[in-house]
């Protein structure tokens, strides 16, 4: 369908953006790549009276390695997340996740910031930033702040962003060279949203897992950290036994929705299979 009518304005700075946002309280929507906003308007899921294009704000652009973290600007498109050498080196889970996000042409427009701000529970990047223990940089009328990914995704399409606030960047802590990563998902067709997906990283010392960070997506209203599975791995070598223990403990971490066509127990089973796969990928990585 054609879009309902709206007013289109460009913001050149965050200040201008929230000024324009506050003028039509509750009825304005920020526009980055537009690849969630535009289809949802075409489907009449929303009909804001004003779209504020924030893509021209300089602070949302660029990928820079800083002292302790890689700063990835919110306007970084999925295709760049997939190809950028700094992302591949310092935030490999995002680079590994990107080819699973939608189709090539969507990736040319969709942005990392828009994807995280939307917080679709079936989306790949939110789980990747959770597993990477990244921080989300937010700016608003009250100032700027960093929110750990663990505190950012609150509920279905609900994040720590207050109305009018802008997600400016993602900060990924620079990893030690020895850290291993894996990302995978099970989807019906290439480019489809996943039935279940997982992002994982681990630190190994002398063959022992000293730290593990694992996040699942498409398993509920938000991406979910698999705390019990992490605990089952830490202090053990990456072996068939420890993987089986982690798989068994997933029932404590995940409480998937009971869909008539896709019962909770089946999704949990797929999550176990997937956990086995990603841990196995880590083991076989050089």
């Amino acid at each position: 369908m054609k879009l309902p009518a709206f007013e289109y304005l460009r913001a050149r700075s965050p200040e201008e953006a929230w000024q324009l946002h506050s003028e039509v309280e509750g009825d304005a929507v920020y526009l980055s790549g537009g690849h969630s906003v535009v289809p949802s308007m075409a489907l009449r899921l929303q009909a804001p009276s004003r779209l504020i294009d924030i893509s021209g704000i300089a602070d949302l652009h660029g990928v820079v390695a800083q002292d302790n973290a890689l700063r990835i600007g919110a306007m970084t498109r999925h295709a760049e997340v997939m190809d950028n050498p700094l992302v591949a080196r310092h935030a490999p889970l995002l680079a590994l996740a990107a080819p699973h996000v939608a189709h090539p042409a969507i990736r040319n427009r969709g942005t990392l910031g828009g994807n995280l701000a939307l917080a679709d529970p079936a989306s790949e990047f939110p789980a990747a930033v959770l597993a990477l223990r990244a921080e989300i940089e937010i700016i608003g009328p009250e100032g700027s702040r960093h929110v750990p990914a663990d505190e950012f995704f609150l509920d279905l399409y609900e994040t720590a962003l207050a109305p009018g606030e802008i997600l400016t960047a993602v900060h990924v802590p620079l990893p030690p060279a020895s850290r291993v990563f894996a990302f995978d998902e099970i989807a019906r067709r290439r480019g489809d949203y996943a039935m279940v997906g997982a992002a994982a990283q681990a630190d190994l010392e002398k063959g022992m897992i000293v730290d593990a960070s694992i996040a699942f997506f498409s398993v509920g209203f938000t991406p979910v950290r698999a705390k019990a599975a992490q605990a089952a791995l830490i202090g053990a070598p990456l072996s068939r036994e420890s993987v089986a223990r982690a798989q068994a403990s997933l029932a404590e971490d995940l409480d998937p929705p009971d869909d008539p066509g896709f019962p909770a127990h089946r999704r949990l089973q797929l999550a176990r299979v997937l956990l086995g796969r990603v841990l196995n990928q880590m083991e076989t990585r050089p």
Partner: protein
Amino acid sequence: MKVLVNTKVNGTPVQEAVTPRSSLADFLRDDLGLTGTHLGCEMGACGACLVLLDGAPVHACLVLAVQAEGGTVETVEGLTETGAVADLQENFHDRNALQCGYCTSGMLMSAQALLARNAAPSRDEIRDALSGNYCRCTGYEAIVDAIAATGRARAAATESAQAASANTEAAE
């Protein structure tokens, strides 16, 4: 209220006042008469509307015309006129890779972008690149064939050009 948009479409600078709700596809089709860009689903699912924006394929149904400000747009008409996709078109024709043709302009955009990145893609890579392009007629097999054949022909042409220039250098 209309918004003034400056873009370059198929090499020609265009300045036009558009309503914000117009998609880039509507703008190309209705305002510029470039109807080679097709509209199927108008929600990003079918790929009939793909055009090149700043050299990369995008869904013209999901990009607002106002978002093309300052950008360079190439449609199937432009790529046909310059001959950039002439070999792809010929291979699609030879291999019967189209029936109704509704999906074809979108297929050509994805194929052109894939071959620019990867001169000799595998069949799997071709299918991956076409994951957002629906064809309701052909069953895809012939489309994959046509793209693979074009990739091979382009790679062979580059190789023989390189060999020729190496020979000239050697002769000098």
